[in-house]
C-alpha cells in the first residue's frame, strides 16, 4: 500500500506535575483514513490529541506534519498546519449565526463580507452532505447542529486533519449514523480523521485502524478489520493489578435501599436513566462502574432528591422505625435527615459541597446550621468536628481556619468525605471520591469507606478505576448508557467482564438497527 503519511508523533510525552498523562507515544496517521483513538477514561486520549491541536505543548518528543517537524504552540498554529479539533464542549458564540462563528478568527486578507461567507459555508456543506443554515443563530440550534458548525469551522479553515473528541457522546444513534456518513465522505476526499472514543462498536463500524492507549501509554495500533472487540477490550483494560485493599466480609447484611424501575429523561429529551433496579445493602459496598456519563450522576442525584425521576421507586428501609419509605416523595432535606448522604465529587471539587472561601469550620456548619435553636449559630460543635476530621484523616492544613480553597485537592476531598461520614449516615454515596488524589490519600478514602461498611452503612461507590472497584466492592453494578447491564460479585468478577458490560447494550442496539 502506498499510503501517504499525514501526521506523525514521535516519542511524545506530557506531564502534569509528576503525573504522566502521555509517555513516549508514537503515532502515525495516514491521508484518507479514519483512525480511532481508544482507551478508558483518563488514559490520556484527549491530552494526546490536545497536543496535536495546540492546546498543550509536549514536554518531550516531536510532531511531524507532512514529513516536516511542526511546532504547534496554539490552536492557531494547528490551523496553520491544517489541523483542526472538534472538542466535546463546543466553543461557539451563542448569539452569532453559524456563518459568523465559522468565520471567527479567520484572517484571509480579504475584506469581511458575511454574504460571501454564507455562500462558501453552503458550498462546503453541500460537498460533504451537511444540513445547515448559515444564517441560523447558535442558540436556536440542537446539539447535533452545533457539532456540525464546529466541523464546518474546521473545514472552512481548510483543515486536512480533523480530530473529533467523542463526537457521538452528545448525539442520538440516528445523528451518529449521519455523522459517520459525512466522515466517510471526508475520508474519500483524502482527509485524515482521528476519533477519540471508548465505544467499541463505533470503532468497529467506522475506523480503518485503532490506536489503543492505556494509562498514558500507546499499547498498539491495529487494523480494525483484523481485530475483535474482545481483543481491544483486553488491550484497553490491561492485566490485573494487585492493590491489596482490605475487604472484610459483609456482616449483618440487610436491604437498605431498593431502587425499582427508575427512569429519568433530561430536559433535552434524552433518556439518561432507563429502568434501573438494584438493591443497596447495609454492611456492603456497592460499586457502580460505567463509562463517564452513563447515568451515574443522575442516578445518585435521583436518590438524593436533587433530580426528579420520571418513573420508578426508591424504597428506603428505615432502620430506626423499621418502615419502608419512598424517597421519591421527599425533598433533599428530608432525605438527608433520614441518613442518606451524597458526597459527590464532581470535576470541580469545590463546585458542589464546599465553599472555597470559607474555612473548614464554616464548611462544617453548612450542614449543621439548621440544628440551632437560638438565633445565633452554634460554632462550638462544628469546630470540634473540624478538629476531629483534621486529626483523624490527617488533613494537612495550617489550622481549621484556613480557607478550603487553599488546601490541596486530596485534603479538600478528605474534608468533604469526612463531613458526610461524621453525620453518621445509613447510606453513603461517594462519586469519584479519589479523582485526582495521590495514592496515599486514595487509600485513606478507601479505608474510610470500608470502615463505614463495617459500621453497617450501605456504601455506594462510583469509581472509574476498574482495578479499585474489583478490589474494594462486594458487588458491582455496571451502567451503560443509562441502563444496568449487569450486577456482578466483586470477589469473582474480572476487569474484562466489567469492560465488556460497560459497552454491551450499544452493540445490541446496533444489531437491532440493522434488523429494523
Amino acid at each position, binding site marked *: 500500500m502506498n499510503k501517504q503519511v499525514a501526521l506523525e508523533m514521535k516519542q511524545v510525552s506530557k506531564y502534569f506535575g509528576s503525573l504522566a498523562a502521555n509517555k513516549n507515544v508514537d503515532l502515525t496517521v495516514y491521508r484518507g483514513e479514519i483512525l480511532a483513538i481508544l482507551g478508558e477514561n483518563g488514559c490520556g486520549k484527549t491530552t494526546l490529541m490536545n497536543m496535536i491541536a495546540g492546546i498543550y505543548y509536549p514536554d518531550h518528543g516531536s510532531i511531524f506534519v507532512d514529513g516536516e517537524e511542526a511546532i504547534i504552540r496554539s490552536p492557531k498554529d494547528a490551523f496553520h498546519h491544517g489541523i483542526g479539533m472538534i472538542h466535546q464542549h463546543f*466553543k461557539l458564540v*451563542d448569539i452569532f449565526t453559524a456563518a459568523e462563528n465559522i*468565520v471567527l478568527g479567520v*484572517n484571509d486578507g480579504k475584506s469581511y463580507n458575511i454574504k460571501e461567507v454564507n455562500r462558501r459555508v453552503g458550498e462546503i456543506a453541500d460537498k460533504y452532505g451537511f444540513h445547515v443554515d448559515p444564517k441560523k443563530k447558535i442558540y436556536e440550534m440542537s446539539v447535533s447542529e452545533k457539532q456540525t458548525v464546529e466541523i464546518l469551522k474546521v473545514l472552512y479553515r481548510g483543515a486536512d486533519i480533523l480530530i473529533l473528541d467523542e463526537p457521538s457522546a452528545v448525539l442520538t444513534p440516528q445523528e451518529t449514523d449521519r455523522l459517520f456518513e459525512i466522515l466517510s465522505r471526508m475520508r474519500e476526499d483524502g482527509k485524515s480523521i482521528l476519533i477519540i472514543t471508548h465505544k467499541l462498536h463505533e470503532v468497529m463500524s467506522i475506523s480503518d485502524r485503532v490506536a489503543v492507549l492505556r494509562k498514558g501509554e500507546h499499547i498498539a495500533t491495529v487494523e480494525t478489520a483484523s481485530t475483535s472487540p474482545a481483543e481491544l477490550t483486553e488491550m484497553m483494560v490491561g492485566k490485573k493489578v494487585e492493590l491489596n485493599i482490605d475487604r472484610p466480609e459483609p456482616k449483618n447484611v440487610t436491604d437498605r435501599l431498593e431502587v425499582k424501575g427508575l427512569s429519568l429523561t433530561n430536559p433535552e429529551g434524552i433518556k439518561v436513566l432507563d429502568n434501573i433496579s438494584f438493591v443497596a445493602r447495609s454492611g456492603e459496598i456497592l460499586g457502580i462502574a460505567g463509562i463517564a456519563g452513563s447515568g451515574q450522576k443522575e442516578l445518585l442525584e435521583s436518590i438524593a432528591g436533587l433530580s426528579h425521576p420520571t418513573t420508578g421507586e426508591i424504597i428506603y428501609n428505615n432502620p430506626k422505625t423499621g418502615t419502608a419509605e419512598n424517597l421519591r416523595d421527599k425533598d433533599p432535606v428530608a432525605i438527608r435527615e433520614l441518613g442518606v448522604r451524597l458526597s459527590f465529587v464532581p470535576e470541580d471539587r469545590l463546585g458542589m459541597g464546599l465553599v472555597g472561601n470559607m474555612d473548614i469550620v464554616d464548611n462544617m456548619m453548612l450542614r449543621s446550621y439548621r440544628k440551632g435553636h437560638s438565633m445565633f449559630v452554634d460554632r462550638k460543635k462544628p469546630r470540634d468536628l473540624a478538629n476531629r476530621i483534621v486529626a483523624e484523616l490527617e488533613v494537612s492544613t495550617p489550622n481549621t481556619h484556613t480557607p478550603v480553597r487553599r488546601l490541596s485537592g486530596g485534603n479538600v476531598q478528605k474534608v468533604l468525605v469526612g463531613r458526610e461520614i461524621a453525620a453518621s449516615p445509613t447510606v453513603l454515596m461517594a462519586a469519584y471520591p479519589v479523582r485526582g488524589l495521590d495514592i496515599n490519600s486514595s487509600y485513606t478514602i478507601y479505608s474510610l469507606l470500608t470502615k463505614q461498611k463495617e459500621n453497617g452503612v450501605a456504601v455506594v461507590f462510583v469509581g472509574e478505576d476498574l482495578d479499585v472497584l474489583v478490589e474494594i466492592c462486594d458487588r458491582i453494578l455496571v451502567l451503560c448508557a443509562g441502563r444496568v447491564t449487569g450486577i456482578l460479585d466483586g470477589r469473582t468478577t474480572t476487569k474484562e467482564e466489567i469492560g465488556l458490560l460497560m459497552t454491551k447494550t450499544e452493540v445490541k442496539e446496533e444489531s437491532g438497527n440493522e434488523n429494523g
Partner: protein
Amino acid sequence: MEQFFASFLDYFLTAFALGMTFLYGCTGEILTEKAGHLNLGIPGIMCIGGACGCLALKLMSGAAVPPVLLVIIAILASFAGGAIMGVIYCFLTVTLKANQNVTGLAMTTFGVGTTKFIMSDMSSAKEATQSYLYALKYFRYPFGESGSALVYNGFMVVLAIVIALAAAYVLNRTRVGLHLRSVGENPATADAVGINVTGYKYVATCVGSGIAALGGLFYIMCWSGSCDAYKSIEKLGWLSVALVIFTLWRPNISIIGSALFGLLYLAGNRIPTLLGIQFDMSVTKLLEILPYAVTTIVLIVTSVSKKRENQPPAGLGIPYFREER
C-alpha cells in the same frame, strides 16, 4: 402658538445638544462592554476628559497658535486623559483580573476628585481664562455667533454622531467588530480561534474611555460654556451608563436614545415654561428621575421578553482566565 413652537424648538435643540454628552459616554461604554468589561468608571473618566481639555488650554495660553489648532489640542488632550484612565482600568481588571464593579467605582471616585483638583485652579487663573474663552469661541460658535440654541450644535455634535455611527458600523459590519463581540460574548471561544483577547479588551476599553472623555469636554466647552460646569458631569456620566442599557448595546439607537434622555433630563425645567405653569422646585428636581425610570422600564421589558439579542454581552463582568488543563 407660534411662541410655543419657538420655545419647543429651543427645548428640543437644547436637549438634543445636551444628549450628545450622553452619546459620547454611551458610545464609549458600549465599546467597553462589547469587550466584556463593565466600566463604571465612565462618570469619572468623563470628568477627567473635561479637566484634561481645560488643562491643555490653560497650558497653551499665551502661545501663538491658530484657534483651530487649540481646539484640536484640547480634544486630543481630553481623549488622551480618558484613554489613560482606560489603561489604568484595564491593567486592574484585564491584567490583574480585579473585580470590575469595584475598580470602576474607584475610577469614578478618582476621576471626580482629580477633576476637582485640576478645575479649582482654573476659574481663578486669569490668563487661563483668557485662552479658555478664546478656544470657547471656536467650540461654541464655529459658524459665527448667532443667538439660537443651534449654536451648541457645533462640530462636536456632528463628531458625536459620526463616532456613534462609525462604532455601529465597526461592530456589526467588520471583522474587527465580529472579533470584539466574540471577546465580550465568549472569550474562551475567541481565544481558541486565535483572537488576542487581552489586546481586544485593552484597545476597546481604552478607545471607549477616550470617546467617553470627549463627553466631558463637550459638556464644559460646548453645552454649558462655563468652567464650573465640571461639577455636574458626574451625574450625566451615570446617565450615560444607564443609556447603554436603554439602547440595548446598540450605538446607532443610542443617537435617538441620547436625544430622548436629553429631553427627559430637562423636562422638569422646560415643560412648565412651555406650558406656562409653575412647578415647585422639589417637583422639578424629582422629574430628573425620568431617564432612570425609563431605563428601568426598558430593563424590565427586555428581561421579560428574554430575547437573546437584547441581553448584555454574555461575558460582561466576568474576568477571563485561560484554562490550564
